[in-house]
């Protein structure tokens, strides 16, 4: 006989550990345990059967995987936590005894821990780290915009600011900005770095409010990890692009401009203003990932992907040079940092008032300025040779991938709606003409088949089709022809006419051919699936009809609007 199995020696009760058990095993306080879990990326789990996990009891507990906790036992950070505990005890003692020197020495030797190994552990490759950057960036930009609170460790906030500025500079120099959007929550930005799409939010700079039900300690712990992560990522990005890290300006900031702060501080301020280009390492040829990918694709012979890639690359290039011929000036009432970043990321030059922020490269009176961003209803003194636009124009232009006409964005005018670039239209949806970026893409799609058709083995196809036609033509002519009755008529009909050049529309023929093939294929569909197929077809047809209707409506509306405008003009002419 086998030995009797004891209860709760195997299975769920052993695989899961409750939080309190974990605390006892690791000999940590709850706060420390929480921090450790966040740093190491250990998350609670929900057992399938709570009763089994808790030895038959049905209590509301937080569970962790026992393996995870076992893994945590080897963590050197735990030891540092203990050091921290003793440090705090000593410090409080010294404070209570009013021992100033001891307190100071203690403070100078405050224990700390490094998270390098944890980052390496959680993100074994650089791509993994990039994939998880959304959260990291959002949190760091959020804290970078915080005031220096007593709750938060000051050096960490400063680090946040620095890291965020470094990242923005990278985006500017690499030109990887894809989308931007102003929402009520904040500014959404999307970039593409090494094929990874990264989205993050920068909050509006509108005063600091402390939400009541947020555990600040937890967020600070997340921040601790993310600052380490972003530090490494920034270094890697900079070094791969051949930039000097930490970033330095090409232009040396001099203290002669301001005698109030040190040179270091001043250069930092200049750097943070995002208005000036940063230094590149001499004699480095950064590896262009896109090119490498393309070459690989070519070698593999993946033409479709190649096409797609080329289109994408063209789009990015247009975006990078979107504002290259523009020179912007930002007025005081506009959130300078965001707009400076966006304009510079698209290749534009930008400046602002000298009293607003350091890093201004030219003055309002500069005559080469092409666009001035203005967000106030009225302007008193305007210069003739520049365009005054509202800031939304910049964001809309970027999303449309072209410089939009400025007439709708003039100061004081009611702006057209700011559309979200994150809305993805499905195939065949109706797209209002306001959605510029989409429209362009659609046009591309429409053009493509026309371009493609002749490229598919033109000569062979032609010969084949022409042959086919020649064979067919006489047949079709023969059947409807009624036999001429009399000889004369026959004679008359036997007339020889001058030859005409056959007008063969190749694309039309190809299309007809494709349609026929499609029809044949449709016929082979089994009955069961046929119904579903019909359903899909029907829904598509309905959708198309709907779209057509909307388009027609729009066309009518546009026409009417145009006519009205012309009528108004005529009236005015008459009046004048």
């Amino acid at each position, binding site marked *: 006989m086998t030995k009797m199995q004891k209860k709760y020696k195997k299975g769920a009760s052993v695989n899961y550990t409750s939080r309190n058990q974990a605390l006892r095993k690791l000999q940590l306080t709850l706060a420390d345990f929480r921090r450790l879990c966040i740093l190491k990326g250990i998350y609670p789990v929900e057992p399938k059967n709570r009763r089994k996990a808790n030895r038959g009891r049905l209590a509301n507990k937080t569970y962790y995987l026992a393996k995870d906790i076992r893994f945590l036992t080897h963590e050197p950070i735990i030891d540092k936590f203990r050091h921290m505990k003793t440090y705090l005890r000593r410090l409080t003692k010294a404070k209570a005894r009013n021992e100033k020197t001891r307190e100071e020495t203690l403070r100078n030797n405050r224990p700390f821990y490094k998270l390098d190994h944890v980052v*390496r552990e959680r993100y074994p490759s650089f791509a993994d780290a990039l994939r998880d950057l*959304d959260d990291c960036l959002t949190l760091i930009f959020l804290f970078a915009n915080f005031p220096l609170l007593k709750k938060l460790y000051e050096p960490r906030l400063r680090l946040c600011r620095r890291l965020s500025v470094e990242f923005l500079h990278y985006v500017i120099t690499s030109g990887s900005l894809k989308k931007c959007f102003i929402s009520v929550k904040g500014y959404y930005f999307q970039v593409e770095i090494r094929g990874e799409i990264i989205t993050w939010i920068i*909050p509006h700079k509108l005063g600091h409010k402390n*939400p009541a039900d947020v555990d600040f300690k937890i967020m600070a712990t997340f921040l601790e990890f993310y600052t380490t992560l972003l*530090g490494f990522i920034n270094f890697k990005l900079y070094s791969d692009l051949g930039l000097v890290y930490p970033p330095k300006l090409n232009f040396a900031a001099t203290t002669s401009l301001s005698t109030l702060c040190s040179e270091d501080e001043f250069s930092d301020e200049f750097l943070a203003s995002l208005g000036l280009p940063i230094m590149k390492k001499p004699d480095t040829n950064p590896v262009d990932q896109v090119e490498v990918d393309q070459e690989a694709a070519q070698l593999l012979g993946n033409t479709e992907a190649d096409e797609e890639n080329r289109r994408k690359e063209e789009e990015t290039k247009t975006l990078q040079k979107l504002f290259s011929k523009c020179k912007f000036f930002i007025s005081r009432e506009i959130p300078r940092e965001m707009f400076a970043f966006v304009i510079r990321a698209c290749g534009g030059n930008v400046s602002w008032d000298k009293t607003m922020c350091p890093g201004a490269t030219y003055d309002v009176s500069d005559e080469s300025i092409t666009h001035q961003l203005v967000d106030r209803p009225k302007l008193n003194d305007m210069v003739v040779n520049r365009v005054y636009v509202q800031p939304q124009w910049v964001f809309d232009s970027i999303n449309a991938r072209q410089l939009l006409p400025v007439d709708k964005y003039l100061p004081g005018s009611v702006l057209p*709606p700011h559309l979200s670039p994150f809305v993805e239209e499905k195939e065949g949806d109706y797209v209002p003409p306001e959605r510029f970026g989409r429209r362009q893409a659609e046009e591309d799609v429409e053009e493509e088949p026309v371009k493609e058709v002749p490229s598919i083995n033109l000569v062979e196809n032609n010969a084949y089709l022409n042959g086919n036609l020649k064979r067919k033509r006489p047949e079709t002519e023969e059947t409807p022809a009624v036999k001429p009755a009399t000889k004369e008529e026959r004679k008359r009909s036997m007339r020889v006419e001058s030859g005409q050049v056959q007008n063969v529309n190749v694309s039309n023929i190809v299309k007809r051919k494709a349609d026929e093939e499609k029809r044949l294929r449709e016929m082979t569909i089994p009955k069961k699936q046929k119904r579903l197929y019909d359903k899909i077809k029907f829904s598509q047809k309905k959708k198309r009809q709907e779209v057509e209707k909307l388009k027609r409506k729009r066309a009518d509306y546009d026409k009417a609007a145009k006519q009205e405008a012309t009528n108004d003009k005529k009236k005015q002419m008459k009046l004048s």
Partner: protein
Amino acid sequence: MPRKTAKHVARNKKKYWRKIDTQDIEDQLEDVRVQEMTGGRRSEQPDHVLYHIDTEHPLGSKSPSAEEMQVSSPIIRSIPRKRPPLDLNNLNTYKILEPHSSVQPPGSDSRQSRVSTSKSTKRLIESEKCTETRRAATKKYQTAVKQRAEALQRNAISKAEQMELIDPHVSQAYDLWNTQDDKKEKVRASVGPAMAAYVEQVYQTYDWKVPKHIIKHPSKLPAITTPLPGTSYNPTYDDHQDLLKKAVDVELEKERKDLKLQRNLPAMLTQSAAEPIKQAWLKEMSSGLFDDDVENDINGENNQSTSVSVGKPVTIETKTVQQRNKEKLQKKKEALNKAKKEKRIRDTQLFRIKSIRKEVDKETQEHGQLLQEREIKYENRKNYGTKKFGRYRFEEADLDLNLSDEITGNLRTMKAEGNLLHDRFKSLQKRNIIEPRVRAKPTKTKMKKYEKRSVREVGPNYQPK
């Protein structure tokens, strides 16, 4: 004295005997034997055999050199030799008196204590000494200060350098994903992989195996949800209406749930509704305590006179045997009929096998579909759902939106909505990264209030004593 032999040895054995060191006796005997072999015992020999007068070296003459002494070794004592003449000038007794140290004797000045007679010179000397010590002290102090400053600076520089390497608040300037542990590599190269593994085992410096699931995210929800088009600061009318509708739907759903809960809970009684119940309870509890029982009694008497019980009187109807038999028969008949009918139905079912099969097929298909749906639902919950950890359930944050009249359509006058920190916190909770918690309220110990007796006594009927 304790015996060194083991105690367990029997006392009548030779082993138990006391052991005495006899080496000196042996030596003595050996010596005697040697003396007897070399011409008799010394003690028994006359003096002239043992000694002779040295006439070669009379007292005071030069003593023989070491070589000579060696040559004239004393072993051959039996052959008398001439002694070298005594060198009186070189006697050991005189030599001892001569100085034998290589250190020169101190000067005659220092050996003599300077005895200054005058008070002034004494004072002068003292003051000189004083200044000298002071100067030495200051010099010592200055050097110490200098050294300390230098050390401090050195320390600070080294510390700064170290901090730059270690401080978590200075971002690291090295490629994390392309570095290798040099120390480990060196060890491996010098010792070999097997030994290196052992060393790592001993010092616990090996890399712990990371559980694979750590790289995975606990939820497949994106960190940043794509913003709804209605949240634009200047949205189109339709988009904004959609957003508002969504928010309204959320609110209605909340209300519906609340209503459902209210309906299922026993209705909380309002004070006015609870009053009659309270009264009744009071009455019941206080029945028989007060005088008003008399009235009740009278009423009771009145009731008694009319009827004894409230309900109808119960009569027990018994069945006769005949009746029972009849019923039995009836039951049997019914059962038979039922069986017959069932059989008939079954027989007819034989002819509609096809349709039955169809029905069965349909049922299984439906069942399969249901299973599939459930599976999909489960997968969705696993991948995108928010799990429940601990006591509290996750509560979704409100949608951030501008109301219709809050939209200004202008960046400068825009009204920002929502807190990003709150949003992040909720997002982390939603993605199963942290558990939802309720902030513990700060506990306040209740103050116990009481009046002093002397104060309490002072009432409206108080009369001072």
